[in-house]
């Protein structure tokens, strides 16, 4: 197998007495969708935050494309190719859809220090932003205010902003949350095609989505990875059934 694009090595993060991430090592290989599942409070968001740079681990390392980024800021990691969507939409609500998408394009261009020319008349930036919006199906809404969007459209815009970065790896924290069946189906179809561009570390509660998309699944319980494997392996794993479904194996 080729080298992983993204990996964590023995990450530990404690909040007081609670060890939210307990010696977690996972890999994300090119071309795969790696789903991260686990009951509420298992530590999924905490892990994502450490990978992105929002939280500093107590020990362990985060490696992106062979480079140790554990000490780097969120911004540096983003520039190094990490694209992220939030569990709760983090969008500039006062701005238009296009302007939000432009932010990603702007970040990717590494050139925010331009004070005079209009952002909207910069062809390269706009093309990049528009093509991302087109891909998630928001091109027609580009001039609407983000606060006017429906919940589902905001989730789409979250994904579009990450797309404009053209990242080397995606981290998505519950992208399906709050989408209807139709919305979920469309997003599943979309993510399915996305894995060829960059692998996705997908945190998701929607099991249909996970089973439809994941090449591999890691199960987190009480901060620990209790199993990693293909969909079938995980379905059969007795430890998973016990921890996750509360069943006696």
């Amino acid at each position: 197998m080729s080298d992983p694009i993204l990996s964590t090595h023995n990450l530990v993060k404690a909040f007081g007495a609670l060890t939210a991430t307990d010696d977690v090592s996972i890999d994300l290989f090119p071309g795969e969708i790696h789903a991260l599942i686990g009951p509420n409070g298992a530590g999924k968001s905490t892990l994502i935050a450490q990978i992105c740079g929002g939280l500093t681990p107590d020990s362990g390392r985060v490696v992106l494309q062979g480079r140790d980024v554990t000490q780097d800021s969120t911004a540096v990691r983003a520039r190094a190719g990490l694209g992220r969507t939030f569990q709760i939409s983090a969008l500039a609500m006062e701005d238009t859809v296009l302007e939000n998408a432009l932010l990603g394009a702007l970040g990717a261009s590494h050139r925010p220090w331009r004070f005079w020319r209009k952002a909207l008349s910069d062809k390269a930036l706009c093309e990049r932003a528009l093509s991302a919006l087109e891909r998630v199906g928001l091109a027609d809404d580009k001039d609407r205010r983000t606060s006017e969007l429906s919940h589902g459209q905001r989730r789409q815009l979250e994904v579009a902003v990450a797309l404009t970065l053209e990242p080397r790896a995606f981290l998505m924290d519950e992208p399906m949350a709050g989408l209807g069946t139709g919305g979920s189906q469309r997003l599943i179809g979309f993510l399915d095609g996305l894995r060829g561009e960059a692998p996705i570390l997908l945190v998701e509660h929607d099991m249909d989505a996970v089973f439809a998309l994941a090449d591999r699944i890691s199960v987190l319980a009480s901060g620990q990875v209790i199993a990693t494997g293909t969909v079938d392996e995980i379905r059969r794993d007795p430890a998973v059934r016990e921890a996750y479904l509360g069943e006696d194996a």
Partner: protein
Amino acid sequence: MIGERSITLVVLGLLLAVVAWALVVDEPFTITLATRAAILALAAVGLNIALGIGGMVSLGHAVFFGLGGYAMGILAYHAQSFSALDLGLVSVAGTKSMPVIWLVALGVSALAALLIGLLSLRTSGVYFIMITLAFGQMFYYFAISWSAYGGEDGLSIYVRNGFPGLNTLVPIQFFGICFALLCAALFLNARLRASPFGLALNAARQVPARIETVGLTPFRLKLVAFVISGAITGLAGALFADLNRFVSPTMFSWQLSGELIVLIVIGGVGRLIGPVIGACLFVALEHWLGGLTEFWHVYLGAILLGIVLFARGGIVGLLTGREGPHV
């Protein structure tokens, strides 16, 4: 409802019309009032970049206003007393040339904004408010205790500084200079908000987490905005000193910082023309109410409370029917 752009043009037009009327009926004092409004507006336009776009509630912008004022005061003082200004390594002559003074005012206040910003932007929320307020006091007390330039009594400049080709002592000509600079600052501000930088800064105020995940650093965006903001307010300080031909530590006072915020809020936070509306109303109130009662600040306070509690978008918000700004 009225568009923001037409409000901007109407307000600037009205200000010009008042001045034209004053010129016709020969009321130089009204022109001076309009000049005062234009200068305060310029200072608030500067603050509005930090406050309105960047969301930084700076209660210390009087620092830059005062530095601009003292830049003018010190340079002009050395020029009128024919003494050299000793800067440690070199000593330079003073000057009575406005453009030179403006450049110095811009430079000095930008530098101060850089230093203050580096320290205070490490924090946010109330810490930021209190720290900027504290830095304001620091400069205030420094100016008071620095007797070389008048200390508490301030510095008087006998003749207004000059601008090539104009007679700055004629009120309408000095107003023209201030109004032109105000328009230039408004134009810069408008370009800035539509620029890539403005877009990022505006988003850094709303969702800092998002800005970081697209690879930008909110701290740097805000710092640059704070420096631009401080420099413009500093330029206004130099003009204000020239208007009064006097500088004193009160230019650094925290009340002035508070009033600059008040100007913006009366007009509408984050609105391009907000500071101009606020400044014109403020100067008008100060003049009319101040003429009626010694205690006009009570009314100012009441108006302010009313705006904060009941009309959150300020005047522009009332006119456009929208509380928040939107490009």
